[in-house]
């Protein structure tokens, strides 16, 4: 009867030690974020402003998309629109095949994960190499990223050492992060030099200037954008910011919220192709306009993918990203998934939260994430039928004070039975993790009446 996330959490992080490791690694990012935020006196003002600018952009998104398109074209970029993942994949595939590009380097893009671009291209004989170290690790393991900023945070150095030994020929038993990174660097450098095209994600698109903004710490996106002549940049429709003043705002928030850095090591603004090169921008809807049309959920499109809500989420940290079964995990993943995917399994994700609200409190663009989770619970009939019936029955009792008090007496009688484990025990879910409290004795109502008796 267990819901998918809970069951997968046990597979993902099999014991308390694995949980502790994952939790500590991820929470470390939250601590770094806290320190960076505390060092910037106007952080809260920036945050409120970012929320306001994002809401304004979403409210005028068609204008900004058209402005961006016009300016990017004027700068020499080719702009494509894709209604869904299939259209996106087809556009990228055609761009590559028409130019005979079969060796492609790719930098991090959650959108291409969402669209399943890699398998699509690989099935057509195009070799796609993920070049972000974390992405490369999960690519070699043939598994999805578990975190939008640190894709391999769920893997330990020993596992990565073994993986590199198998695929990159590193010495057996090598697990030193510095040396493993060096091996990956040496493996990827010739791939960059030989690449015929680069695919990248987009952190922001500036409407006023037609610029694409790409942020990385490794510089892998920049190697892709400067070496091969063809650069294909893939972005969701929500990536627009009005102008450079607003870009400054979001850049001041993004890295601080993500990893506690004041800015990523490299932040590149690409406006048009480099001399002799080609720049293509693929702008993707894939369900985003459904969110935009929903007054309740459009705010989720304000997300800048910093990952702060994942890092602070006590559920994410103890379940691991793969437990979500979506390209984006954590609170924002659970908010986006019911709108962006048809998979019925993701509909229970909004239930996988204690609604502690920490996600909403860290979000640099002020998305009321836990409010969104709550709203999804009302909208999507996700709860198993057994729960819906239980709710109906309980509400019927609670609506009648006399019945309610009678069932309270029944509960007290049944207490010793509930405290024991037996198949079908209605308290089974409680007992799965903890003991029942000691018998509570008489109810408050009974004691109150006794106390007030003359």
């Amino acid at each position, binding site marked *: 009867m267990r819901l998918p996330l809970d069951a997968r959490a046990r597979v993902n992080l099999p014991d308390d030690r694995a949980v502790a490791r994952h939790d500590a690694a991820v929470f470390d990012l939250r601590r770094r974020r806290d320190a960076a935020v505390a060092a910037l006196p106007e952080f809260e*003002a920036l945050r409120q402003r970012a929320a306001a600018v994002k809401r304004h952009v979403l409210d005028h*998104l*068609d204008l900004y998309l058209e402005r961006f398109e016009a300016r990017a074209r004027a700068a020499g970029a080719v702009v494509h629109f894709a209604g869904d993942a299939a259209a996106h994949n087809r556009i990228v595939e055609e761009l590559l095949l028409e130019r005979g590009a079969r060796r492609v380097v790719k930098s991090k893009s959650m959108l291409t994960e969402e669209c399943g671009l890699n398998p699509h291209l690989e099935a057509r004989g195009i070799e796609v190499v993920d070049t972000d170290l974390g992405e490369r690790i999960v690519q070699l393991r043939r598994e999805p990223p578990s975190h939008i900023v640190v*894709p391999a945070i769920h893997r330990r150095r020993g596992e990565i050492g073994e993986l590199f030994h198998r695929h990159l020929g590193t010495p057996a038993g090598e697990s030193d992060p510095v040396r493993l*990174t060096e091996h990956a660097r040496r493996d990827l450098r010739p791939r960059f*030099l030989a690449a015929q095209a680069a695919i990248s994600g987009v952190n922001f698109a500036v409407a006023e200037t037609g610029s694409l903004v790409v942020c990385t710490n490794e510089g892998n996106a*920049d190697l892709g954008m400067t070496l091969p002549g063809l650069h294909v940049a893939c972005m969701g429709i929500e990536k627009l910011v009005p102008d*450079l003043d607003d870009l*400054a705002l979001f850049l001041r928030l993004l890295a601080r919220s993500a990893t506690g850095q004041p800015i990523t090591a*490299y932040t590149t603004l690409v406006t048009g192709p480099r001399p002799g090169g080609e720049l293509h921008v693929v702008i993707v809807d894939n369900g985003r306009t459904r969110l935009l049309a929903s007054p309740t959920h459009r705010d989720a499109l304000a997300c800048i993918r910093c990952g702060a809500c994942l890092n602070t989420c006590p559920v994410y940290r103890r379940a691991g990203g793969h437990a979500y079964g979506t390209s984006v995990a954590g609170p924002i993943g659970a908010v986006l998934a019911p709108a962006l995917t048809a998979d019925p399994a993701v509909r229970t994700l909004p239930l996988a939260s204690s609604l502690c609200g920490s996600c909403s409190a860290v979000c640099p663009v002020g998305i009321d994430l836990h409010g969104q989770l709550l709203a999804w619970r009302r909208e999507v009939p996700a709860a198993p039928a057994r729960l819906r019936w239980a709710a109906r029955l309980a509400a019927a009792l609670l609506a009648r004070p006399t019945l309610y008090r009678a069932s309270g007496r029944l509960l007290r009688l049944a207490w010793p039975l509930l405290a024991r484990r037996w198949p079908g025990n209605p308290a089974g879910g409680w007992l799965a993790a903890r003991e029942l409290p000691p018998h509570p004795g008489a109810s408050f109502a009974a004691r109150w009446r006794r106390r007030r008796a003359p």
Partner: protein
Amino acid sequence: MSGDREAVLARVRAAAGRRVPHPGVWEGAPGLTDFPAFARILAAVGGEAHGPLPERELPAALAAWADTRGAGRRVAAASAARRLCDPRWETLGEAVAPQALADVQVAVGVGCLGVAENGALAVLGRDVPNRALLFLAEHLALLLDVRGLVPDLHAAFRALPEGALAPPGLTWVSGPSKTADIEQTLVLGAHGPRSLAVFAFESTLRGG
């Protein structure tokens, strides 16, 4: 693909609300702009700051620094070469294929603005037309006229010169290439430069 364009824009248009106004330009109070503040942040992100030195001392300081970065090919972007006038640096021509820079040991370029709040330097296509140099060199030095220091990114974008965005683009560089993708252990030199040095200088032509 134009079919998708119209359909996507139509859906966006139907859902846009036109209610929320833009909050206007940012008018927050700027923070510190002094070089020590910049140097502190740069050190925190794994870079090193030198200076500010008089402009004429740059060639010697750079040569001394480069000597600590291993032997090999030394390449200066044209903008930097002009200031160095040092024959030990190969001046990079614009027509060179980026792939030909894969074996550069030490590179030097010119930054246009330095941001005290985040230790980033703006490197413009004007100054480093072959941008691959920034990401292929084993070690990178960037020169910065101290008059180009600004407090934060808001101020920085306002201070960018005309044409700053022209191809091949503008890169903010804050520290060397880095990753922490293996167990959150920070490793410098994930792909590109293993170290980054910023040499701030005071122009001999004061107020010029």
